[in-house]
């Protein structure tokens, strides 16, 4: 979930994700610096803002009220760097803005594809403490390869769940990889120029400055209230993304809500089967007595099992969302169905696990031998890796 910031572009309010807001701020700051000494600076800037606003408007719809960070980046790339017209050079200010002089007039044929933020700073892997969960390793990797930190974290969690290797890698990296401390290092961590980072920092301060600017407590409270409301609006947006589009639009039957426990039973059963399959795979090297092909290592089979489980459970999850929707507005039905659902789910999982352990003694043995198996799996990976 990302924070949303509301801005005013050409007299209209737009909601941007925080990262997008930062990028836009940086772009406009660089533009302002580039147009230093241009007599029409204010006018050009307002034209630019108007054009950005128009592009944002094209992205929004009644279901979509927030401009995402990547969309802002795409719009800014489309806008291109601000060209300095001949005879109106920005002199010292252009270099101050972190944009090399030679690039300043090169927008002519669309070859100037950088946005304000990508001034060609060499990248390096650092740990980034801002917004970190533990030591900033995942955050740093995410900035380095330019993806969402959540994805990197998820990958580490999955690795850890499988054989604990994710944890090991994390600890090693937390020790080995340096932390980005100076502004230059922070810039190198994401490839953003240090000056842009500085703009971003200043932009962020704007929120607090705006708060200070309110004369009395009532208007300050009003500001806070509005801010919170925007946050809530964004949460709804996030939920919408989370739902599948067609789960939102497929027809529903009012009584479908009470299908939830049935779905829970199915989902619980799928999970138990999955866990049993995983245990049997790790314990015997075979899937419920079915031998694996000779050249497939056990850990690949386990990974495939995980994928298969995901595919199997996917439609169940969508059906679940359909059920949620069919519950409609009154909140008490919601809580009742949820409670019922949770109880049924727990009961099914517990019962099936108990049955499994009770009737298959191998399974009980397997659970007890799991720690030894983890070591074996690690060795397995190592030999496979060495063979490569």
């Amino acid at each position, binding site marked *: 979930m990302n924070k949303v910031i509301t801005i005013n572009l050409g007299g209209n309010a737009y909601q941007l994700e925080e990262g997008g807001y930062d990028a836009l701020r940086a772009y406009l700051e660089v533009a302002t610096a580039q147009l230093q000494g241009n007599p*029409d600076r204010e006018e050009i800037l307002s034209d630019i803002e108007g054009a950005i606003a128009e592009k944002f408007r094209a992205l929004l719809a009644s279901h979509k009220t927030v401009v995402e960070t990547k969309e802002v980046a795409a719009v800014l790339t489309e806008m291109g760097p*601000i060209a300095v017209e001949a005879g109106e050079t920005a002199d010292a200010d252009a270099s101050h803005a972190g944009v090399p002089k030679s690039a300043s007039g090169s927008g002519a*044929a669309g070859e*100037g594809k950088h946005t304000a933020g990508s001034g060609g700073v060499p990248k390096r892997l650092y740990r980034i403490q801002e917004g970190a969960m533990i030591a900033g390793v995942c955050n740093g990797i995410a900035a380095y390869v330019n993806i969402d930190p959540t994805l990197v974290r998820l990958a580490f969690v999955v690795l850890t769940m499988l054989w604990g290797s994710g944890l090991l890698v994390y600890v090693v990296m937390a020790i080995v990889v340096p932390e980005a401390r100076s502004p230059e290092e922070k810039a190198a961590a994401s490839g953003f120029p240090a000056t842009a980072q500085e703009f971003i920092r200043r932009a962020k301060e704007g929120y607090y400055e705006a708060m200070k600017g309110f004369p009395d407590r009532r208007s300050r409270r009003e500001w806070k209230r509005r801010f919170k409301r925007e946050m809530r609006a964004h949460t709804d947006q996030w939920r919408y993304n989370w739902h599948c589009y067609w789960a939102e639009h497929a027809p529903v039957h009012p009584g479908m809500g009470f299908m939830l426990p049935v779905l829970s039973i199915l989902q619980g059963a799928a999970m138990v089967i999955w866990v049993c399959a995983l245990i049997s795979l790790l314990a015997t090297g075979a899937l419920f007595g079915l031998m694996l092909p000779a050249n497939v290592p056990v850990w690949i089979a386990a990974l495939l099992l995980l994928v298969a489980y995901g595919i199997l459970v996917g439609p169940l999850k969508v059906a679940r969302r359909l059920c949620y929707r069919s519950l409609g507005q009154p909140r008490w039905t919601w809580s009742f169905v949820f409670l019922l659902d949770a109880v049924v789910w727990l009961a099914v999982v517990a019962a099936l696990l108990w049955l499994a352990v009770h009737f298959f003694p191998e399974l009980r043995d397997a659970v007890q031998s799991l720690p030894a198996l983890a070591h074996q799996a690690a060795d397995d990976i190592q030999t496979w890796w060495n063979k490569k």
Partner: protein
Amino acid sequence: MSVNEKFSAIRKGLLEFLVLQIIAAEKVYAADILKQLSATEFATQEGTLYPLLSRLRREGLLDYEWKESEAGPPRKYYQLTAKGKEQLRETLEYWGQINGTVKKFGQK
């Protein structure tokens, strides 16, 4: 200097001429100009176009008026001034001459 860089210098010089020509044909706003250029070698971006338009206006070659649009806030529609039309005519003439010269030498 690569061939592409040389071409880019030529394009840069001609962009102004092309923009004047587009505006001469009809009253347009900035996004129209970009759209018309987008399919050509002269495809450009707002970051280049707005500073160029503002300079041309300052030089007295073009002017704009605000017009309401069906969706969203009013837009600036650009049109050539008398001076702009005159300069476009001169440039076209000169362009014809250059073109002729280039072709003439090519035939020898």
